[in-house]
């Protein structure tokens, strides 16, 4: 007996409510943009400059006391956050963050020593397992690099799709991609999860994953277009999605199983990063059907290219790839 997440034959009509689902996606994107501008991203020191110190102590974290101890040092904007981890109930860790001090790049030895001494006065058992400091010069460059990386990745991948498919497919894929990235930035603004360099890596993985899914569906559409020349396009799209549905669900589930295991067990250092990827897999899977294909349906495709390629219809590797 096999475990089957999706029945072996499905005939869902994915476009019955396509106006509604597309509308919902557009609305979610607008909300995300609004959240981005109203709440903003909780940028990590990679992008903003500043210093973070992780503390670990034998006794419970007292955010107020930590803050009070640091106040006399005049470090400017200070934040103290407790680090919670369900798998480690006896963890008494916190993260202290302060902005880059004027006139210096990375925090000087004197500033770090002063901060550590002030915190140790609160709790003498305290240790500092992690310290990171990024000067404004470097953080500026990192922001620039991150933006270039995301744009370059999108550009390169779209170029590849345009090479392999018709331009309408490219547009569908772009829309799905923009949708996924916007929604990810939206959720990061809403939940105020730290947005740092690692999240950029997660974003690019989402780009890859979302396209991966879209490409598999498109590949089947391309194949069916050659096989069924008279089937209405909507029906043909539906058929292609239904045929690949089992694979889409299987792959998403195995990837999610792996990611959730990492989310729960992988420790707090990496949790934000994994969260971004889980979110990306979910919205990426959704968007390959409800955004990419829905847009492809609205754009339609040129269907008479087969005539040029006489006799090759139905074969897998016909040279239709632009």
């Amino acid at each position: 007996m096999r475990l089957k997440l999706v029945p072996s034959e499905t005939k869902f009509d994915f476009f019955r409510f396509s106006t509604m689902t597309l509308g919902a996606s557009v609305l979610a994107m607008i909300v995300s943009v609004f959240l981005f501008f109203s709440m903003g991203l909780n940028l990590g020191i990679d992008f903003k400059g500043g210093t973070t110190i992780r503390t670990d102590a034998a006794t419970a974290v007292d955010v107020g006391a930590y803050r009070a101890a640091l106040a006399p040092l005049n470090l400017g904007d200070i934040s103290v956050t407790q680090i919670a981890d369900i798998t480690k109930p006896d963890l008494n860790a916190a993260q202290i963050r302060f902005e880059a001090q004027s006139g210096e790049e990375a925090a000087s030895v004197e500033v770090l020593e002063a901060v550590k001494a002030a915190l140790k006065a609160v709790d003498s058992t305290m240790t500092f397992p992690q310290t990171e400091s990024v000067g404004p010069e470097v953080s500026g460059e990192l922001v620039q690099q991150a933006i270039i990386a995301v744009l370059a990745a999108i550009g390169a991948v779209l170029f590849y799709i345009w090479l392999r498919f018709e331009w309408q497919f490219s547009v569908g894929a772009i829309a799905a991609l923009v949708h996924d990235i916007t929604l990810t930035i939206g959720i990061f603004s809403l939940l105020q999860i730290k947005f740092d360099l690692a999240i950029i890596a997660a974003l690019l993985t989402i780009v890859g994953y979302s396209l991966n899914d879209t490409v598999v569906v498109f590949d089947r559409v391309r194949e069916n277009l050659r096989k069924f020349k008279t089937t209405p396009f909507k029906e043909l799209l539906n058929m292609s999605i239904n045929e690949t549905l089992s694979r889409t669900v299987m792959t998403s589930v195995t990837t999610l199983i792996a990611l959730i295991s990492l989310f729960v067990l992988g420790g707090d250092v990496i949790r934000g990063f994994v969260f971004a990827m889980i979110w990306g897999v979910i919205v990426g899977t959704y968007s390959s059907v409800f955004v990419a294909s829905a847009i492809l349906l609205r754009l339609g495709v040129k269907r008479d290219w087969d005539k040029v390629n006489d006799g090759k219809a139905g074969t897998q590797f016909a040279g239709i790839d632009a």
Partner: protein
Amino acid sequence: MLQFSLTKKIIIWGVIALGFLFAMPNGFYTRVETANDAKVLMADGVRDANTVAQAAQWPNYLPNTLVNLGLDLRGGAHLLARVKVEQVYETRMDDYWASILTALRGERATIGTIRRIDAANDEVRVRISEPAQIARAVELVSELARPVISLSGAGSNDIDVTSEGAVVVVTMSDAEKIATNTRTMDQSLEIVRRRVDEAGTREPTIQRQGVDRILIQVPGIGSAEELKGIIGKTAKLTFHAVVTRTSDENTPLGARQVLYPSQNEPGIYYVLEKTPVITGDQLNDAQPAFDQNNRPAVNFRLNTTGARIFGQYTAENIGNPFAIVLDQEVVSAPTIQSHIPGGSGIITGQFSVEQTTLMSIQLRAGALPAELEYLQESTVGPDLGQDSIDAGTLAVIVAFAAVLIFMALSYGRFGLFANVALIINVALIFAILSIIGATLTLPGIAGIVLTVGMAVDANVLVFERIREELKKARSPIKAIELGYERAFSAIIDANITTLIAAMILLVFGSGPVKGFAITLGIGIITSVFTAIWVTRLLISTWINAKRPKTIEV
């Protein structure tokens, strides 16, 4: 499609066997690491019983390359420093001043007296007392210009000579600046490396980044502050003639004079001649020692040139004070009692034993040509690193097991084939990471977990396709062949898009992000290999052995 030639089979099994062989040392990480360290010691001639026993822990015929653990996993410190290259310009201009002086001195009769006046750090300005002769002075100085030998600066000279009234202005050319920067960076890298090595830390990474930056990563060190202590200050040692001793910080200075504070007498300043008599470059050795009052001090010995200059200077200046200056602080200012011919001496001051030890390391390693400014730093404690390794390993194992079970439940026998391929896939990832000497970081572990989830994708595509073909009542062999054939383009397209994203991360990413990109990229390549070749070979072997009438996928 299901027939494999013998050569192909041998290649596939060979790659798999090599994969396991090269991945294996990582399963015995501490043991292999200890053995490797011991072998390095033995190569240096250490032969004690303990080292020999440690080296024997891992046989020589087995591969011994390990995946490097990143700082976030092993613990250690990372620093990104900027070398203030422009500080070197000033020293270079001092050298030019010496030649300019020699060149102009001979024609004092026509151009009058020569005086160096204050200028920007990449200039020398010389005022002559006969403004009418400025053209002659410029001509003389211009003869000193030498072409810069470099790839980019072809055809340009090291100095540009112009005049402003009675002042000859000598400016360092851009080509010369570039050449100087390269030298400064090479020297700084070398000195930082020597200082870090002298402190006995293991496997430090010291690299040049960009125009004027140095990346320093040292695993196993307690904190970035400690690392900064080891790299220390510039440790620029100079001896100067003393003009006066004062308690007024704002003492007006004459031309080419400087005011440095005293290191151990608060509120006391020394006015010194700016051009040093001797610099630390002429130092042969420095050792921590104690002076006659048993206070920590540093003994130094100058090289032959240094000893000659020092001997001559002390002979000519008996009774005058001279200042020993370390990083712009007057450490001591003794009066010259007698001619000192041997070139050795002692630096006394208020030091602790640690300070004199560090100071002698830094003096021995040589002065940094310019100061360092730290742009970025991070420290990860070894415990946190170990926690991350433990958590990461657990997550990988659980993810792995869950995916294996899920695949077996979903695809039965074919799921098992995919599982074997998945295990081979992870072994291949570790083998490749070890062979290319890549560094595994925490995001890198995440990349592996993600690969475990995504690697089955290619197999899922094939299996789903086989199911479809079976529904069309194809024979098992035909269905499998068509399944592979028809899923191929989807597999390639889907994986290339992810690979493009991984490559771009690798190019633009920095630090831990790179680690993620490497494991993700390698994972994509190995997963395509295992899905297309390994599972198919397994299926083909099974089909050929059993010849099943029907199959269930």
